[in-house]
């Protein structure tokens, strides 16, 4: 019996030690190993996110108090290409770079910013660029391929302005056949025709959307609403040579004064 008691005590000890080992604090979050593996196999993670807010009523609605949360989310989600809207390059870029300590280890990210939009590449390189108003166009070279990228923050309150903003970028992006393309941003297209808030011409929104969807693949079609209350206002489109694997709206990342969730898609060259 004494032997039995000793063995039982040993089991309790093993359990205690194992639980202590299991609850040892985790290492601080780093870029996941899976991410590096993605890069080896040419999978692209592209995200669009309106990082501004509306609730505080500021003229420039990017709420500085939510900046650390945005930086943390970008670090965690760890996309390869980031389309930002309601982003102020002059003040926010430095904060973003400083916050993304882990990303910086692999070199500074590339950025093309215009107005309140920015295209950020954490992988590959950004070239060229037509930067007008709240719209940006550039080439993204990644894994030896080049992709034309467009990012727009289209006006919310005027359908005609919205069509013009989207059309300007889309026309230039689709001007020549051939190259791979990614087009996205906060398009403020209300194709569900909830026109009470955003659209003064729902037919116009549907027409713009249909025009885009005929030429590019709507990657976030089944991903769900991106903005309050349940609107799909943020879009990512891609040319047919880019095969989508997965698209989802990432809930839980935005700060208390923000009104958009990020839309993340993964793609691979066909």
């Amino acid at each position: 019996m004494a032997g039995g008691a000793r063995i039982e005590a040993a089991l309790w000890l093993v359990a205690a030690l194992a639980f202590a080992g299991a609850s040892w604090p985790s290492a601080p979050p780093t870029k996941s190993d899976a991410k590096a593996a993605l890069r080896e196999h040419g999978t692209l993670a592209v995200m669009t996110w309106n990082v501004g807010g509306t609730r505080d009523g500021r003229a420039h609605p990017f709420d500085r108090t939510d900046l650390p949360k945005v930086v943390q989310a970008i670090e965690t989600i760890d996309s390869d290409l980031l389309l930002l809207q309601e982003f102020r390059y002059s003040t926010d870029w430095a904060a973003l770079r400083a916050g993304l300590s882990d990303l910086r280890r692999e070199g500074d990210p590339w950025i093309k910013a215009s107005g309140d939009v920015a295209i950020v590449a954490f992988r590959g390189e950004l070239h060229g660029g037509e930067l007008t108003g709240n719209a940006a166009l550039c080439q993204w070279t990644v894994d030896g391929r080049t992709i034309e990228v467009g990012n727009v923050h289209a006006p919310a309150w005027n359908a005609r302005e919205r069509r013009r903003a989207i059309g300007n970028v889309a026309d230039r992006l689709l001007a020549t056949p051939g190259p791979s393309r990614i087009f996205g941003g906060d398009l403020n297209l209300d194709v569900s025709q909830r026109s009470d808030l955003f659209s003064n011409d729902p037919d116009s929104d549907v027409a713009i959307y249909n025009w885009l969807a005929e030429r590019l693949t709507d990657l976030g079609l089944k991903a769900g609403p991106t903005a309050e209350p349940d609107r799909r206002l943020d879009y990512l489109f891609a040319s047919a040579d880019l095969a989508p694997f997965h698209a989802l709206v990432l809930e839980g990342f935005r700060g208390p004064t923000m009104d958009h969730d990020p839309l993340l898609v993964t793609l691979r060259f066909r």
Partner: protein
Amino acid sequence: MIAGLEALRLWRSRRPLVALLALLCFLVLMLVGFWTYAESRTKGAAQFEYTYENRSYFNGLTFALYAFYFGFVLLLPIFAAIEGGAQIAGDSGGGALTLLLTRPLSKTRLFFVKAGLAALFSLLLTGMFLAVALLIGLCAVGWGPLRLYPGVLQMTDTPQFLKRGEALMRFALAWPAAGLALLAPLAFSLWISSWAKSAVNAVGTAVALYLVLHVIAEVHFFEDLRPWLFTSHTTYWRGLFAERIDLREMARHAAALVGFTALFLALAFRRFRRREET
């Protein structure tokens, strides 16, 4: 003496044969399920919707992994519970425990021979299941590289690609890792068994509690409870199918499983030492 006797009794009990046949039937059903689902739902479409629908990358390794995952979550713990229930409560109900206890044999030795044998049985069953799943995958679907994408099975949160040889190595590693994970439900069922007087009660209770704990571990409402449930850790072996294995995270889960196993074994052993055979 006792180890040989118990091994012979286990073999003669036909439980190993029944378990193997059940797993084989399960694998065949899984194969039919994958086949018909892919045919009827997607008509072979390339568009990715649910991970296992896409025929462009689905092969024998994917089949083996998914079949093993389902089997591991739902079937193997039940066989572990049956073994735990049979080893103490089953022997008690049939009088075999009385017979063993009237020989010059310590309860400590008896308990650990039974626990060890059940663990060995679970490990072999896990290995056989994996091997047969791979074999069926090879014969019926064909092998290739293992590609995993995020999806309903939560096998991965980012796309993964493993060459065939590397993937097979990961399957080999998954055997002991899953075997370790199965020790926790097995020790849990031994603990339940040490309280029960009949195998039916022991197995029924252990399986019911396992399923409840498994569901709680899966439901997001109980996020705070998860670290305290062994069922939250048992599928940690999925981490082996990432291109780069997060060893630290795997070690944490493995340590938790060792902890739960030792805890349940200690409780079961304590009860077994004090248990009366009426």
